[in-house]
């Protein structure tokens, strides 16, 4: 009983319960193929996430590690609301969530400024909110007068700098990061890594990071979740789990 009370005192930001995600029968079919092969196509089912249960307390930074195809990204997308869960539930306790991704909805013909607005609106912010942060984004991206040029004239470095700045400056309660983004030249890389660090160490923000880089995770995270074949193999303090993972991968 005492234990239960204790748990209730912690505020959770993400509660995931018995989450299953399947890719099934969903193979797109073509009419032509179906006509040629009258036999009904077999149901293909692949379960990417198989019964995952965990909670993330508010303000925590949780890393997710695991080999390729262990369901990390799929789970992250489900939390972001892009996939629906086939079984189980995801409760975000009313928080605003965003999957950190670069250059969503960019239109190459438009200027950087217009793309900031477009991308911001797509991420669910209002026009006034985006306009308030506009200057901050432009300053952070350090692309100077190019901001009023069409994005198609940007170098690839400038493109990703601008894209990163938008996601970094427009914040949300829960941030989901699929592979820590490293963009731009060495200087910007350092700056963006520091910004990232500052962003995620804000105590009101809950963060989940998927990465293969053990160093990054041990730098940034308090807790690490190790996923293996769609299940949680281990979840606990960063150093402990990462040590074991390192052993396992040898």
């Amino acid at each position, binding site marked *: 009983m005492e234990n239960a009370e204790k748990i209730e005192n912690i505020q959770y930001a993400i509660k995931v319960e018995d989450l299953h995600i399947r*890719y099934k029968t*969903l*193979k*797109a*079919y*073509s*009419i*032509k193929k179906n006509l040629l092969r009258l036999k009904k196509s077999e149901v293909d089912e692949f379960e990417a996430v198989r019964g995952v249960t965990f909670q993330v307390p508010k303000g925590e930074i949780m890393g997710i590690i695991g080999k390729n195809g262990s369901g990390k990204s799929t789970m992250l*997308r489900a939390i*972001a*609301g*892009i*996939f*629906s869960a086939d079984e189980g539930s995801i409760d975000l306790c009313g928080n605003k969530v*965003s*999957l950190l*991704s670069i250059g*969503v*909805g960019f*239109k*190459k*013909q*438009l200027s950087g400024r*217009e793309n900031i*607005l*477009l991308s911001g*609106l*797509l*991420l*669910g912010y*209002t*026009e006034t909110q985006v306009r308030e942060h506009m200057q901050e984004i432009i300053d952070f991206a350090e692309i100077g007068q190019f901001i009023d040029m*069409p994005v198609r004239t940007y170098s690839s470095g400038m493109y990703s700098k601008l894209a990163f700045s938008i996601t970094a400056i427009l914040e949300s309660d829960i941030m989901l990061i699929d592979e820590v983004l490293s963009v731009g030249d060495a200087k910007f890389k350092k700056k963006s890594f520091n910004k990232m660090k500052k962003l995620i160490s804000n105590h009101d923000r809950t963060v989940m990071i998927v990465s293969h880089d053990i160093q990054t995770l041990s730098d940034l995270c308090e807790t690490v979740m190790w996923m293996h074949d769609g299940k949680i193999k281990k979840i606990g303090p960063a150093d402990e789990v990462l040590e074991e993972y390192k052993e396992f991968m040898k």
Partner: protein
Amino acid sequence: MFSRFIKDLKQFGGYTKYAAKSQLKSEVANSYLNWLWWVLDPICFMLIYTFIFGVVFNGKELYFPAFIFVGISMWDFFNRCVKASVKMVRGNKAVVSKVYLPKFILVLIDMMVNGFKMLISFAIVIGMMIFYRVPLHLTILWFFPILFVFILFTFGCCMFLLHYGVYVEDLSNVVNIVLRIVFYMTGIFYDVEKRLPKPYGKYLSRCNPLAYMIGSARNAVLYGRAPSVKLLLVLLLVALLLIYLGLRLVYKNENNYVKVI
């Protein structure tokens, strides 16, 4: 479901408008003459049809070019929206797989873009009416309710195609053929009711919603004839039903789309 629709509209309305605007903008960004194509395109087709069906096949409708133009404007809108919605989710993979977006918003953006082009077309129709000295009738006011029903109907159709377009890879081939059939059945360049042998013309113009809507829009604008209110109301109901069923289908499945593409 209705409240969810309203909520989504509110939340993403700003994005929808801005995305439509920037879509139009990026279409003209390359050259300042590009918007001319929004005007030239329907005019050229009108000239072709006027020549073929007015001169070669001896079409006799009054104000023939304007008659065709109203038809083309509305048909183009329907045609473009439907064709685009089949490939909508696949085409927007970059966006759809990164953020949650109610999928009907994608259709809405496209409809706004095409709607804007339709408006330009209608502006040309006004010009033609002045040129041909078409007498102005009060029935022209009927044009707006007809257009309203027409847009709702298009939205309803697009919802279904949006959904099935995700799962059926070669649906666009089928849709292209069906659209071509519907195009000829709709009488863009002839009057369905007059040209077809006796009973069939009437059936077709009543049973093909597009033929009916385009026909009555022409009657209202050019010939001063009001549409049948009863039929229009029936069509409104059909359109709302399509939207209801289509939207329900999309809402139920939209989070699985990303798994397929």
